């Protein structure tokens, strides 16, 4: 994220609180949570019949700030896709993005204050699932008065949320675009997340999750993020970006960051620590690992009856969420009789491609959404 001086309209992050006591939200694992706050942003205008709303769903480390500039001058994480004239054209669509339940960017999560103790939840925060994140989003969509979303769009964990919308609230969406994602986390994906969690929990500053107000487990979280970044890139993109180039200003220490790739990972790790809560990292990676949209269903039944149009996208060099996992989603759609399409896009960027390789993605999503909007799914909205 680059910082620029805000020019023109600064996007404001709003918040919505629901499930106030005594009406609490019942989570998938049976625990109760409330009140619940979601931070969210909106771009574009909701039309009069409220039929042009698109919900954008963020990945592991994302937040509600998907597009435009915030008051600190930071550009949104999917600004290349969302904006006037872009794939998610804010001249036509009302785009909504909220920070997930369990997150640390304004939505209720482990760093929030527990109403029963008056202190941060820490690890007393209940386990949340992708299903719980989507349930909370449904409350927000209800609050905004939107009966049926024109689309739900997201990559990686955002793609899982899109799949969850398809399975849980099929009548509330006209279409879905799950990108670089999976029906369920594989052992390899779980393994990488577990190494990240162990790094956090092995940091003495973690203190069982009760570090708020004290030193944060920054070393552990930075290592977790470094592992993450390795899995988000491809061998080719690393070779292209860093080669075996060494850094200038080397420190006089045997294990200093000699290579540019080392310096890059350290930088990404350190900057992540400044903007992300370590406990949120544990909870959200756990939600990813627990994700299994099949949940006992046959693959041909999970989306049965879904009327929404689905566009599944994957990227060739993505080895963390490889194309075969997207093809499994496609298989589930085909067997369920869902109106679906699948494109495998060319890119060297690995898993990061869905955030970076936006030109083809932008065109595809743009033209797909146009056909959805013209299909009158949502009470005659057209442009």
């Amino acid at each position, binding site marked *: 994220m680059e910082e620029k001086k805000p020019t023109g309209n600064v996007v404001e992050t709003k918040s919505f609180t629901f499930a106030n006591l005594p009406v609490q939200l019942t989570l998938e694992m049976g625990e109760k949570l409330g009140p619940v706050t979601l931070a969210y942003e909106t771009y574009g205008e909701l039309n009069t019949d409220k039929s042009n709303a698109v919900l954008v769903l963020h990945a592991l480390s994302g937040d509600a700030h998907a597009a435009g500039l915030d008051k600190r001058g930071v550009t949104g994480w999917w600004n290349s896709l969302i904006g006037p004239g872009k794939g998610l054209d804010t001249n036509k669509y009302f785009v909504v993005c909220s920070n997930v339940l369990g997150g640390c960017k304004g939505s209720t999560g482990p760093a929030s204050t527990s109403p029963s103790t008056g202190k941060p939840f820490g690890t007393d925060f209940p386990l949340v699932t992708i299903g719980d994140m989507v349930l909370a989003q449904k409350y927000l969509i209800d609050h905004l008065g939107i009966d049926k979303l024109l689309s739900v769009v997201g990559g990686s964990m955002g793609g899982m949320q899109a799949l969850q919308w398809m399975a849980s609230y099929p009548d509330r969406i006209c279409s879905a675009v799950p990108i670089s994602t999976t029906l369920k986390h594989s052992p390899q994906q779980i393994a990488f997340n577990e190494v990240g969690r162990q790094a956090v929990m092995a940091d003495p500053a973690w203190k069982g999750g009760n570090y708020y107000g004290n030193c944060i487990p920054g070393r552990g979280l930075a290592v977790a993020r470094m592992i993450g970044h390795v899995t988000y890139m491809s061998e080719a993109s690393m070779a292209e970006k860093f080669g075996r180039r060494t850094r200038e200003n080397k420190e006089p220490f045997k294990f200093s960051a000699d290579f540019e790739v080392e310096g890059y990972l350290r930088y990404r790790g350190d900057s992540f620590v400044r903007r992300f809560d370590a406990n949120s990292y544990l909870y959200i990676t756990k939600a990813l690992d627990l994700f299994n949209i099949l949940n006992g269903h046959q693959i041909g039944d999970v989306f049965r009856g879904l009327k929404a149009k689905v566009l599944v996208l994957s990227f060739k060099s993505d080895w963390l969420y490889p194309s075969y996992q997207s093809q499994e989603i496609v298989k589930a759609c*085909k067997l369920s009789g869902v109106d*679906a*399409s*699948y494109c495998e*896009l060319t890119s060297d960027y690995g898993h990061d491609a869905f955030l970076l390789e936006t030109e*083809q993605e932008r065109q595809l999503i743009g033209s797909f959404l146009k*056909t959805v909007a013209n299909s009158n799914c949502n009470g005659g909205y057209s442009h």
Partner: protein
Amino acid sequence: MNNNGGSDRAIIADWVGEGSSVLDLGCGDGVLLLTLARDKSVRAQGIEISDEAVHSCVAAGLSVFQQDIDTGLAEYADKSFDFVILNQTFQQVKKPDYVLREALRVGKKVIVGFPNFCYFADRVQIFLRGKVPVTASLPYQWFDTPNLHFLSIADFMEYCQKREIKIEQTRFFAKNRRVRFLPNLRGEVGLFLLSK
């Protein structure tokens, strides 16, 4: 690609029943599926490997899957489509025998269309010029062609007999005109409606 000016589309549209389900293997930019959706209200689905063609299909609102049909149709149940179409794709797949078997498993009926390699203009080029033919229906040079198999109408009919595939209907044409006599000599393109 072939230059029969859409005669094949008209015949296929004639064979395909109103409101039926259609899977087009190698659907290209989706022109045939769009015709069938418009004229016959079919439930259309396409499989295509080329990036640009797939993107065109998405922009046209078609259901399309970027996939290699040579790897089979494992995710489709038996007889899950009324029609499976292999129009101008059959001679371009690596394993035509396997692909056609899969098409006949998934479709109640299968439509196959291909350029006839023994059309007289092709024969003339082979015999008189001693060269691999380049004609309207086979427009490619030998070193740069998507066509991997060269078959004649007679070859295909013999093949169907051997595989016990029922030929329900045929249509042959050259330069947009129907050919009734000596199709293996005078037909530039053959279309077959098959079942098993």
